[in-house]
């Protein structure tokens, strides 16, 4: 426990841990000392000088070391000759802080006057108007009139694109460097800087492409003026016209808490539309940050390409139908397909959707298959991160092991928080086949070939036989106070994923790092609710098995999964399947092959829950009304259930959760009420001065609930895993996940669209040299029965024996162990013209 220090602030006594800054101590007792440059998530820099206060300290007697007392018995206080910055001064015992006297009030007014000499005062047309610390503080502390000649103000550029996502207004910038510091200290992407100096100091970026950081949007939240705005929201609306709705991001397993701001608009017939996404504070999940995908991807919900009506195949063509017709057709089709229904669902569906879909599969004695490359959800359910954990608590004494994952791409907020844990002194160990951005912060970087990652991880169980870094890592795991292991899917296919998860679970069990806060196993799942899908009873199948299941199924129900769009073998299998029903937002490749297509509501149009990779169940709320004709997946499942004579709850998501709680032990204590509970978090967000979190939202609608772990751990028998051999002349096919992939939703988001990963096969540069091709030139890839032609791209981090293909590449990619890459034979000139 930190030593406590007692001081007085404006005659109010407050006791805080030693090391607390005066500004934070004041905030705790409701005294909002004005600040601009200070941000509680960053080191203080004391540059804006807004937070000046008068500070006195007790006079100490040199000889006795005791405070000198006044005649009235109170300690004698000596005040410093100059005002001090509350944001940089730590509290000390007996300190007396004055924040309201004449000297301090005058200083605030004076500093504000300085800031305003250069400010354009264009509040009426500023996006930040109404939620601007400068505006608020000016009202509270500012001078009544300007003594500065308006003609002498500096005129500067007002619409500088820093990249395609963020715009800068140079006149409004007050040079607080919050954005620069966020990018270098928190995001570790130092792509914003100052150029020039003095009054000419201005924000700039030199990165290629502009403002090249997946965390860029956060700078617009913490900018205390309207200098930084998103391409999304600029001139979009005035903050006071906006309503907010609590939501979650479902694009990765972190489960970042979001707030969507909505406004009724004429262009959508007076309906509410989303104007922007902002982080919502959850210190145990995303603190006050989100990645740019979370912030900008929501536009797919308003895509004109959304399915607007159910479709039923008639005479070989998908034709619009009413819901009743479509549901009837679907139920009839599935009924006549007999038992053995295959329900294939993706991890972006909610727990309620998945529970209901599972009920359908169970009713038809079928199989509930999770569409995922990763296994291990049964293990995380047993040895996952224990309740009471918070990555922010990891520091010296803790070990974080990240195996086979490029967290920066797969789960950006975890990347950020683990990097910070390492900077606080936690020992970070990475294990992988190629260097990743996280490695820069690791103390041990364990390297294992693709195909050998699970084995390498398992080897840590026996330190005795190991050498070098592996041995050190094994010993670090044993001696650490806390251990958290993350396992991902970088170049890992399902069978290896199972072995990888198993090895990680074994390590935790053997070293005694389970069932305690800040210990446990975390899956870096492909989607926001993959963990929930496991919990609801969905399990993945390996590609060949899945193809077999689909091809042999009398009935297939697809929800949140597009196998045909991803893999030609699955597309073929789907074509062989009996009756196919798809519930989706878009007409995916799988939907094109379906017999009935049912338009699903986007998650922003309904409510539900997701279970994050840390096994925190969180609630999301309706943000906008559903698209005409779209229905929530759990409702669709329930309605299909009616046709299949099965009782599935479809009236309300909360009622589905009651069933989940009744049937799934881990969820026994979960209810919508409990999920909506909050408690005070630090730093305090949302007071009138807005200074702490910027425009990050205060969390008033629920921090979520961590799932308990079972008393008894019983791990399944381990399965031997050996990678498929790669014949001479072939390359191991390595599949990895990209943040800006071409997922079926992402590709309908115009803003993010500009950053989508290029369509290419990735090879080590020296392989390109061997092949004699330049980056960008096409190569021919033989993968099983398929032959693809793709531009080659260089990635020096890939090993020499591998060919990399992103998952959700936007085109079907065969899921095979190895491929042969060669230069395409030149087309004989005579034939070229025919095409």
């Amino acid at each position, binding site marked *: 426990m930190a030593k406590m220090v007692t001081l007085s602030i404006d005659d109010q006594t407050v006791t805080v841990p030693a090391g607390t800054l005066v500004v934070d101590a004041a905030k705790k007792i409701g005294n909002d000392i004005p600040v601009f440059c200070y941000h509680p998530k960053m080191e203080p820099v004391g540059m804006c000088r807004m937070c000046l206060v008068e500070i006195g300290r007790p006079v100490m007697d040199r000889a006795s070391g005791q405070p000198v007392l006044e005649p009235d018995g109170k300690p004698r206080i000596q005040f410093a000759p100059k005002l001090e910055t509350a944001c940089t001064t730590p509290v000390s015992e007996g300190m007396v802080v004055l924040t309201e006297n004449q000297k301090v009030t005058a200083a605030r007014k*004076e500093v504000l006057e300085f800031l305003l000499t250069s400010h354009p005062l264009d509040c009426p047309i500023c996006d930040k108007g109404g939620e601007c610390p400068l505006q608020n503080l000016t009202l509270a502390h500012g001078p009544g009139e300007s003594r500065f000649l308006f003609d002498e103000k500096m005129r500067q550029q007002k619409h500088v694109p820093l990249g395609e996502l963020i715009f800068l207004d140079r006149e409004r910038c007050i040079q607080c460097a919050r954005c620069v510091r966020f990018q270098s200290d928190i995001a570790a992407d130092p792509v914003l800087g100052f150029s020039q100096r003095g*009054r000419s100091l201005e924000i700039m970026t030199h990165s290629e492409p502009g403002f090249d950081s997946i965390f860029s949007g956060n700078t617009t939240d913490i900018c205390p003026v309207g200098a930084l705005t998103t391409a999304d929201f600029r001139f979009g609306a005035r903050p006071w016209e906006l309503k907010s709705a609590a939501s979650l991001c479902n694009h990765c397993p972190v489960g970042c808490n979001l707030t969507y701001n909505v406004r009724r608009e004429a262009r959508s017939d007076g309906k509410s539309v989303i104007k922007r996404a902002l982080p919502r504070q959850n210190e145990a999940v995303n603190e006050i940050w989100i990645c740019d995908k979370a912030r900008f991807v929501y536009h797919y919900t308003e895509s004109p390409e959304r399915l607007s009506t159910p479709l039923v195949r008639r005479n070989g063509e998908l034709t619009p139908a009413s819901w009743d017709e479509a549901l009837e057709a679907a139920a009839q089709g599935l009924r006549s397909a007999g038992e053995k229904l295959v329900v294939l669902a993706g991890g972006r569906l909610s727990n309620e959707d998945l529970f209901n879909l599972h009920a359908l599969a169970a009713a038809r004695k079928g199989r509930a298959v999770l569409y995922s490359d990763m296994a291990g959800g049964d293990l995380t359910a047993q040895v996952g991160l224990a309740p009471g954990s918070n990555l922010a608590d990891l520091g010296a004494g803790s070990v974080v092991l990240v195996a086979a994952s490029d967290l920066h791409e797969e789960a950006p907020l975890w990347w950020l928080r683990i990097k910070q844990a390492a900077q606080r002194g936690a020992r970070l160990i990475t294990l992988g086949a190629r260097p990743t951005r996280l490695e820069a912060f690791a103390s041990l970087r364990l390297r294992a070939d693709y195909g050998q990652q699970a084995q390498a991880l398992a080897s840590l169980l026996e330190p005795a036989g190991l050498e070098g870094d592996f041995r050190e890592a094994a010993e670090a795991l044993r001696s650490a106070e806390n251990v958290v292991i993350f396992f991902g899917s970088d170049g890992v296919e399902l069978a290896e994923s199972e072995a990888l998860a198993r090895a990680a679970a074994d390590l935790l069990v053997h070293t005694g790092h389970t069932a305690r806060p800040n210990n446990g196993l975390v899956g870096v799942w492909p989607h926001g609710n993959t963990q929930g899908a496991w919990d609801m009873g969905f399990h993945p199948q390996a590609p060949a098995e899945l193809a077999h299941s689909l091809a042999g199924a009398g009935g297939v129900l697809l929800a949140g999964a597009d196998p045909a769009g991803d893999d030609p073998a699955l597309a073929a299998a789907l074509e062989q399947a009996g009756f196919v029903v798809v519930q989706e937002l878009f007409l995916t490749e799988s939907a094109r092959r379906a017999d009935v297509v049912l338009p699903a509501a986007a998650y922003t149009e309904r409510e539900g829950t997701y279970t994050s990779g840390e096994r925190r169940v969180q609630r999301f709320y309706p943000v906008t009304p559903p698209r005409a004709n779209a229905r929530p997946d759990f409702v669709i499942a329930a309605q299909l259930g009616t046709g299949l004579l099965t009782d599935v709850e479809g009236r309300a998501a909360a009622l589905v959760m009651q069933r989940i709680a009744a049937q799934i032990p881990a969820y026994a204590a979960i209810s919508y009420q409990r999920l909506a509970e909050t408690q005070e978090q630090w730093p305090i967000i949302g007071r009138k001065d807005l200074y702490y979190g910027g425009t990050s939202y205060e969390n008033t609608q629920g921090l979520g609930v961590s799932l308990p772990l079972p008393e008894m751990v019983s791990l399944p028998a381990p399965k031997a895993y050996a990678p498929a051999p790669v014949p001479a002349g072939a390359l191991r096919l390595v599949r990895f996940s990209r943040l800006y992939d071409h997922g079926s939703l992402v590709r309908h988001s115009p803003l993010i669209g500009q950053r989508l990963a290029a369509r290419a096969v990735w090879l080590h540069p020296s392989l390109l040299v061997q092949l004699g091709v330049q980056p960008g030139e096409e190569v021919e890839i033989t993968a099983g029965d398929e032959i693809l032609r793709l531009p080659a791209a260089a990635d020096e981090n890939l090993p020499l024996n591998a060919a990399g293909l992103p998952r959700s590449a936007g085109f079907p990619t065969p899921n095979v162990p190895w491929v042969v890459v060669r230069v395409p034979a030149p087309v004989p000139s005579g034939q070229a013209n025919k095409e």
Partner: protein
Amino acid sequence: MGQYLLLRHREIPNLHQLDVYRAHGGFEAFRKAVTSMTPADVLAAVKNSGLRGRGGAGFPTGMKWAFLPNDRWPHYVVANADESEPGTFKDRELLESNPYQFLEGLMLASYAVQANQSYVYLRGEFWALAQKLDGCIAELEKAGLLGENLFGTAYHLRLATHLGAGAYICGEETALLESLEGKLGQPRLRPPFPATHGLYNSPTVVNNVETLANVPLIVEHGPDWYRSFGTEKSPGVKIFSLSGCVNKPGNYELPLGTPFRELIFQHGGGIPNGGQVKAFMSAGASSTIVAADDAALDTPMDYESTQNNLNAPLGSASVIILDDTVNMADLVQKTVHFFKHESCGKCTPCREGTFWMNRLATRIAAGQGSEKDVDLLAAVARQMQGKCLCALGEFSTMAVVSGIEKFREDFLHK
């Protein structure tokens, strides 16, 4: 011993050559220190000599060295050769003409705090000087005075130069360290001070060139000998850079405590064209403007007297003479423009205040200012005081406030 302690090249031709410098006892102090004195002995000698920093603040040098914690390593010494205060040109003469005495001082300081790598940070304009200094360092390496196992001991030391690139603020020690780390020259928050968290976050001594040039003499002749020069609280000699309206501008090495009058009239040859001295600035552009009455002219030039009697800092002792042809509004416009140009922009009052003052001072100097503008100029300056992150902001207000206070007429009737 000749007339000079620091400007010895004025008596000894070619003192900038290593053999000449050694022939006059050069590097004996360093040899003595490394071979027969402990680091603590060297530190004690400097402490007892009462040597105070010549870079501006006059902080006791030995005390500064003693602040370095011995549980955190490595230690660094950085020589401050940024010399950018308008009116200051003493370090440049030392570097050019007596470089080895300065380097020996830097090496002694390094030994005293057990630094194995030290740097000379020169303002970028001293490009040619840096080349020469690199040559000197190479000579020293060749002569075995720098490198591994010096004089057969375990001590090793390397020196390197680092050029700034045009920024007055890099004379401020924390901005200097930022610059040496390859960043913008913006001052750091203090505390922590460089003594505990300096270059690369390691314990670091930053000393002025002239300060260091004194050290070989102190080690060689002992603290008592050094104390025989100057005053009790300001012992030793000081180089005074004399400039402005004076017949013989230049550097003058004099004991601390010499009166201004002697510097200006006896050494500087008085005011050109039989003019009158109207005012002077004791510490370059950062200084208050002192009206040159008899009391002022008779004030001894040492750290206490100038501060106490004239409310002006001695600073780096760059004395700028202003005669009766100078209008103080023009002068203030110059100083304010300088600080506006050199403000790093990190803190609000300095960034905005110098910008605003410059607008006002320019208007006033152009004869377009009103009385209200004059009062506003003084008010803006006072409004900056006590609020800035580093001393530059404070410096920028000195001439403004004192100038308007003492020579208001000059501002009103342009």
